[in-house]
């Protein structure tokens, strides 16, 4: 569609800009400010240049939490996106069941994050939780508060439980907007079920899936409340994801400088990865 060039359109965007800039830029500047200063408490700050950045980049602690974060984000994307698409594909297309499915599936999305954490915390407890008890009764030695593997398993399972529905909702919305003629043409061309998915459904869902993946990627990198309530980062530091670590440094030890530097680095990491992903996904848009 050929849209009219109109610079006055900026006036329409202005409220959004002001609002988002106010919320984004002022705190960002504060963080940048912390990241280049040294403090010994009492609100006394000294210029420290890029020391914190070099320190953080060299620190093993940062490397360890970044690695944990990558593993976590990678795993949940690998599970939630295909699973979400699969469920969306298997959903009914019309009738009362659609509404029922959608309403039920959206429920995890609408529960406050600390409640999600608390819910799973109890649900998975080996003695009084349904899941923990059943697993142990089935002969599995399951205890997420003590064993690292079990903690990770529970953490990822919780995230899958919590967020797969978002992918389902978006993918489903994308699927229903594919005109019937495409399916008919594919049938006539003798396409297999797999070919229909590969050449019709996935390409048509590309836009929604891009957004779904971006949202899940960004949000999972920022995840804090649920794992803190579930495992508190333990056992040990085994499930201390980036945000948890940051809060420990910033509020636990009150090392504002390193925490700020670390968060900026990690902000840049997300930005870079998202941008690459975004650029690749929209590369062929204007052909």
């Amino acid at each position: 569609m050929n849209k009219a060039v109109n610079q006055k359109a900026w006036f329409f965007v202005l409220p959004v800009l002001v609002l988002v800039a106010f919320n984004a830029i002022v705190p960002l500047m504060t963080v940048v400010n912390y990241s280049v200063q040294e403090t010994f408490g009492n609100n006394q700050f000294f210029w420290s240049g890029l020391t914190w950045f070099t320190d953080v980049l060299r620190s093993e602690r940062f490397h360890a939490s970044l690695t944990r974060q990558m593993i976590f984000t990678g795993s949940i994307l690998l599970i939630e996106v295909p699973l979400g698409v699969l469920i969306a594909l298997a959903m009914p297309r019309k009738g009362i069941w659609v509404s029922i499915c959608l309403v039920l599936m959206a429920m995890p999305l609408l529960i406050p994050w600390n409640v999600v954490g608390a819910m799973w915390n109890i649900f998975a407890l080996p003695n009084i939780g349904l899941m923990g008890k059943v697993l142990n009764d089935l002969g599995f030695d399951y205890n997420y508060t003590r064993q690292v593997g079990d903690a990770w398993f529970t953490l990822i399972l919780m995230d899958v439980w919590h967020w797969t529905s978002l992918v389902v909702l978006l993918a489903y919305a994308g699927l229903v907007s594919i005109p019937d003629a495409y399916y008919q043409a594919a049938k006539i061309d003798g396409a297999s079920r797999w070919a229909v998915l590969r050449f019709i459904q996935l390409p048509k869902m590309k836009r929604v899936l891009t957004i779904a993946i971006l949202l899940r990627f960004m949000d999972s990198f920022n995840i804090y409340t649920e794992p803190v309530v579930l495992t508190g980062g333990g056992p040990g530091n085994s499930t201390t994801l980036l945000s948890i670590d940051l809060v420990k440094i910033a509020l636990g030890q009150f090392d504002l400088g390193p925490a700020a530097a670390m968060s900026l680095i990690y902000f840049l990491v997300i930005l870079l990865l998202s941008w690459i992903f975004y650029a690749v996904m929209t590369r062929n848009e204007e052909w």
Partner: protein
Amino acid sequence: MKRTSWLVPTIYILFLMLPIYWLISMSFKTTNEILGNFTLWPQHFTLANYRTIFTDPTWYMGYVNSISYVTLNTVISVTVALPAAYAFSRYRFLGDKHLFFWLLTNRMAPAAVFALPFFQLYSAIGLFDTYLAVALAHTLFNVPLAVWILEGFMSGVPRQLDETAYVDGYSFPRFFTRIFIPNIKAGIGVAAFFCFMFSWVELLLAKTLTSVAAKPIAATMTKTASSSGYELGLLAAAGTLTIIPGAIVIYFVRNYIAKGFALGRV
């Protein structure tokens, strides 16, 4: 494949419902029953937990607070997103392509780190512990999403409709409110749903920006959990109650999502 495909969503929904069932069943149990022996359903059915919540102001005010700032946030987010989405869907202007990605990057700011600067910012402008503070803070991640959803719906409305209205004598504001908005009400519903959802479930910023007057229900729960030991039944009841507003909202927008939405720029 076709005949068994209903199994997939069914199993998935069962999986979703199990922890929720456990939460609800706990809310009807006494603390003793929860901590005592393992029971699949409440043996000593009690409404005491709910009674506590509905009679104690520190509990039920938490709900009032949460619903207040979430509603405020939804209204603000959708209101400012509407003109912006209109601009994206109807015009080309300097920087329009990058603007959208920039908006989206604001979701990347780790709330855990930004909580402290946010606290300082909103204290400085005297909004600390108000609904408005939380509502404004949450626009950071809700507005970009609302713009994206609304733009998709708006692009589905032909531009000739705008022109026809101007020709008929409608001023822009009158056209926008009387004609355009009714035509994208599905989009507004979906956008409002997502704004409501993300604002309702967020805790970190909401907790940081409030102390008493605007404290969200979720924060009340963490306080109770730590101060009075594990009153698990009470916690479960409070948790159960947090699901209800969201369930009501999704019920109203289910048809819009079921019809699928036109998807905007990516």
